[in-house]
Each structure stands twice: as C-alpha cells, then as structure tokens.
C-alpha cells in the first residue's frame, strides 16, 4: 500500500512523523509507505531545541534548522511529489529560509523541483531590547496555522516554518482543505486538539504510556499517529496498519493531558476548551475526538525566549558499605573546602537510595551522591571543579570512586515565556522565495 490523497470528499489524513528533533529518522518513510496520507507533518521544536539551534547558529549562521529533516526529505521527496503528499513541518527553527534553500539544493541533486513554502516572521531576537527581553539568545513568537494554509493553497509541496505552535502544523492543513475562517472557533479548536494529540509522535500510540502493561511490549517499533480530520474539526486518531503500539482512549487521553496548563489550551488561532473534548472508540486503533469548543484567541502572542544562563557540570561519587553518612559528610566538607576559593554560584548535592544492609552485590551496597554545580563562568565549573573531586581520590573516604570520569562543563540556557502584541509580529509567507502577502 502506498500513501497519497485518496478521497477528496472524505477527511484530510494528516500524519505525524516527528515529536522532537532527534525522533526516529525513518518515520517519514514509514508514514509515506504504510498507508494512505494527504499531509505528513512533524514537530521538531521544543523549548530546549530552540536553544540548541541558537547555539548551532552562533557557530555557523547558515544553520539554525533541524538537520535531520533534510535527510528525511532526501529519502522521501521523490515519492511524496509523485503521490501528491504534502509535507509541513516547523523544522525551519531559527532559519526557515536557510532550510528551504538547503532543501532546494538536495532536491536539485535528485532531479526534483518542488514548490517550497516558508512561514516566518516569528524571530524577534533582533528586536529583543526594544520588546523587553534583552539579552535573549533566541526569542520567537508562537505562530498559528493560517500562514501554512496560504502556502499550501499557493501550491507548496513542502512548507517549512519557524516557531509555529506544535499543533499549527495540523491546523494549517485543515484550514487549507476546509476553508475555515478565523471565526470558526470550534473547528479550529477541534483541529488544535487533533494536532496536540499527534504532535508528540508515538506519545499517542503507546510510548511513555503508564498503561504499557496492555501493550505487546515487543521489538516492533511503535507506529506514528494519524489524525483523520473532518470539516467540522472533529477527528479520528489512528495509525497505519501493521505498525506497533496501539491507539486507545487511554493513549489519546495521555497525550491530551500532556503539557497543558489548566483547562484552556491557548493557541494563536483559538483557545481550546479541554473540558469540551469527547473521546469515543471507533474500532480497533481508532479513537474519535468530537464536541470540541473554542473561543477567540488571546490578544497577545506568546514568545519563547532563551538566554544563555551559564555553564554546569557534575560528578557522581560512589560510597559503599558501612558508615555512609560519615563518609558523605567528610566528602562534602572536603569538597566545600576545595571549592572555597572560587565557589560556583550554585552547588547542589543529591543522594540516591540507600543500599540494603549486608548486600550481596557491590552495586547493591552502594549509595550514589551527586554534586551538580552551575556558574556564569565555564572555568569555575570546569577543571577547577573536577580537580577538586579527583584530587580526593587517595585522600578521602575508604572506597572512593566515581561513576564516570570528570567531564567538561556544558552551557545551559534559561527559558522564559514572554508576550507581545500581535501588531509587533509581521508574519511572512514565501512561496519559492517570493512573498505572497502578509497575514494580519
């Protein structure tokens, strides 16, 4: 069986092939080949991902997008074009035009010339100071689905975006197919619910699922999810036949409950009332979502900002056998003294579970004690910190050992949400590099 638009009068079949940057690389191929689909979507951007892409771009300004998406396109574009399957993703990250350029090169190498749509305008980092988030490495407004819909309507085979919301990559194709307007709140809310359920990939089909005891729990990879989207915004969540995992009311509930902040789920196009959602079984591996109501979206757009916070490092000490409290107390006293000259801004000690007495394995007799340090300076949490620990090797508690050799400090970011007025954000839609008009 192969994918491709199957029934123009029926639901729009929207598949997901990625829940984060680093998700299963073969998923786009699987969604294309294992059953009918109209649109393949993917979410590549988490709060942390924007920081990673920001750091990529500090090294090389031509980067800043999800590079795994390029590999997926390389493997799948020819077949997708032949079958008329559209591809929509927020893999553009901080540099959607750069990603579009890269896709054009890869396509040309394959003898293909897809129409490529770009939605951007979300990047507010250059105006950070003016908008009140000074010092942010990344600052991106969360955009909705209307720009994606316009790109699709203009014939884009592939649409890559900046920071649209995770659900928008599903809402956009719905708007394109069914012609919803900005006031069609219930239909938009239904599409947001469907989008939220499939945005995290196999989270909807049995991954990270507390009901896993009901799964086959074999080696067959969990299938990625599909939303069959209807004109009224209702949907059926399912997966391709023969793939692993399952779709049940519980697997769908698990994802609906995920990362929500109360009973109303805000998106740039609509506020979705989670209390209105009705779930019902619709046959094996099929769950219907209906009854969803929405209301006018928030007046301001949410902005994800990431600031470089400093550097961190850690060491884990192993304490075995008798007198563990005394061993730990001495270790901490020694470490405190060694760090006294340039004490990191934050020093946090945590402790694993206590071993059972008279343990019959060495690991079973061990307590692990972790020291995590953070500081604006990489140097303070680098060698200065690890040497303090390592130098105790022959001069501390009996049985001194570490679970890993001392590591290099790693930079960390601080994520903060912010809000801006809509008129501060100028969303652009480009098709093959030509702007097709502003979204107001």
């Amino acid at each position: 069986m192969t994918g491709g638009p199957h029934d123009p009068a029926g639901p729009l079949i929207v598949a997901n092939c990625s829940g984060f940057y680093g998700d299963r690389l073969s998923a786009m191929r699987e969604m294309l080949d294992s059953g009918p689909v109209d649109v393949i979507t993917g979410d590549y951007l988490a709060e942390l991902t924007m920081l990673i892409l920001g750091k990529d771009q500090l090294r090389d300004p031509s980067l800043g997008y999800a590079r795994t998406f390029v590999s997926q396109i390389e493997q799948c574009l020819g077949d997708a074009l032949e079958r008329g399957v559209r591809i929509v993703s927020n893999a553009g990250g901080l540099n959607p035009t750069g990603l579009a350029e890269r896709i054009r090169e890869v396509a040309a190498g394959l003898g293909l010339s897809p129409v490529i749509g770009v939605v951007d305008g979300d990047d507010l980092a250059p105006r950070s100071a003016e908008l009140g988030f000074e010092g942010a490495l990344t600052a991106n407004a969360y955009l909705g689905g209307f720009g994606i819909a316009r790109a699709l309507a203009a014939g884009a085979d592939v649409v890559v975006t900046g920071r649209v919301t995770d659900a928008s990559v599903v809402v956009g194709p719905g708007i394109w197919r069914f012609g919803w307007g900005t006031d069609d709140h219930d239909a938009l809310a239904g599409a947001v619910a469907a989008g939220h359920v499939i945005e995290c990939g196999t989270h909807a089909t049995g991954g990270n699922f507390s009901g896993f005891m009901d799964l086959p729990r074999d080696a067959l990879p969990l299938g990625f999810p599909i939303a069959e989207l209807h004109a009224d915004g209702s949907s059926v969540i399912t997966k391709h036949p023969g793939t692993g995992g399952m779709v049940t009311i519980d697997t769908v509930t698990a994802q609906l409950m995920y990362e929500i902040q109360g009973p109303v789920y805000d998106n740039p196009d609509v506020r979705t009332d989670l209390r209105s959602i009705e779930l019902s079984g619709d046959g094996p591996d099929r769950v219907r979502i209906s009854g969803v109501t929405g209301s006018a979206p928030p007046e301001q757009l949410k902005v994800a900002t990431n600031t470089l916070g400093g550097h961190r490092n850690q060491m884990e000490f192993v304490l075995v056998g008798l007198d563990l409290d005394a061993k730990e107390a001495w270790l901490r006293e020694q470490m405190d003294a060694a760090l006294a000259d340039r004490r990191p801004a934050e020093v946090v000690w945590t402790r694993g579970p206590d071993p059972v007495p008279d343990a019959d394995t060495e690991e079973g007799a061990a307590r692990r004690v972790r020291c995590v340090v953070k500081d604006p300076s990489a140097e303070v949490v680098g060698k200065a910190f690890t040497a303090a620990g390592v130098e105790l090797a022959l001069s501390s508690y009996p049985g001194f050992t570490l679970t890993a050799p001392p590591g290099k400090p790693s930079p960390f970011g601080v994520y903060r949400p912010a809000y801006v007025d809509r008129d501060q954000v100028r969303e652009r839609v480009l098709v093959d590099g030509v702007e097709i008009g502003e979204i107001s």
Partner: protein
Amino acid sequence: MSTSRVPLGTFVHARSGDKGGNANIGLWVRQDPTGSEDPERRSARIDWLLGFVTTERVRELLPETAQLPVEVHPLANLGGVNVIVEGLLGDGVAASTRFDPQAKALGEWIRSRLVDVPDELLDPTPS
C-alpha cells in the same frame, strides 16, 4: 467504608512533563482494557479521583513539592485532573539540577505512592 492501602496507579494512569520551570502531571482513571467495565464503577472511580487529588494531597504524596505552589484543574470529561507544580524544575529543563529535569517520570512516581482507596472501587483480589 472499608479501604485498602494500594498504589495510586492501581487504576490511575499518569503522564507528566515540563513547561519552563513548571512540572505538569495528568492523572486519570484508566479504561478497563477488557472493555467490560461497569460504567457506574468507572464514574465512581472518577468522582473519587477528582475529590482525592488536591493541592495538599499532591504535596503529601510528592514531598519535594511541599514548598511549591500546586494547582489542580479538574477535567471530568477526560476522567481526571491536570496538576501543575510551579517552579519544581527551577529555571527550566536546560538549567535544572534535578535528577529528572523534564519531570518525565514524576507521574510514575506519584502512581507508585500508597493511598487509601475505597474497596468498592478495587477489583476483588483473587483468594
């Protein structure tokens, strides 16, 4: 009313995660996998869960949240509640010093805690 001390996860599912420095936990009454559950007992379980999960209870079951603001939002249509623990993850995933910086396993921890559940809501134990 007789009760038994059993893990919360006996008939409650969970999924947890992060938004910035806040952790969130969804808790809901699982569907009977055999599909033959008495709908009255299911709705009694949901009523019990909605009454059981309060700010104080979350702080009691997860002592690491005791000093933090905890919100509980009922979602009766989904058979459960959305819990938000503010500030558990410090400055957010990239900065957190927590052992589970994205709160991915917080839900499995709370499911493992022992709680008093009315016997009428539990499956009879095979004797």
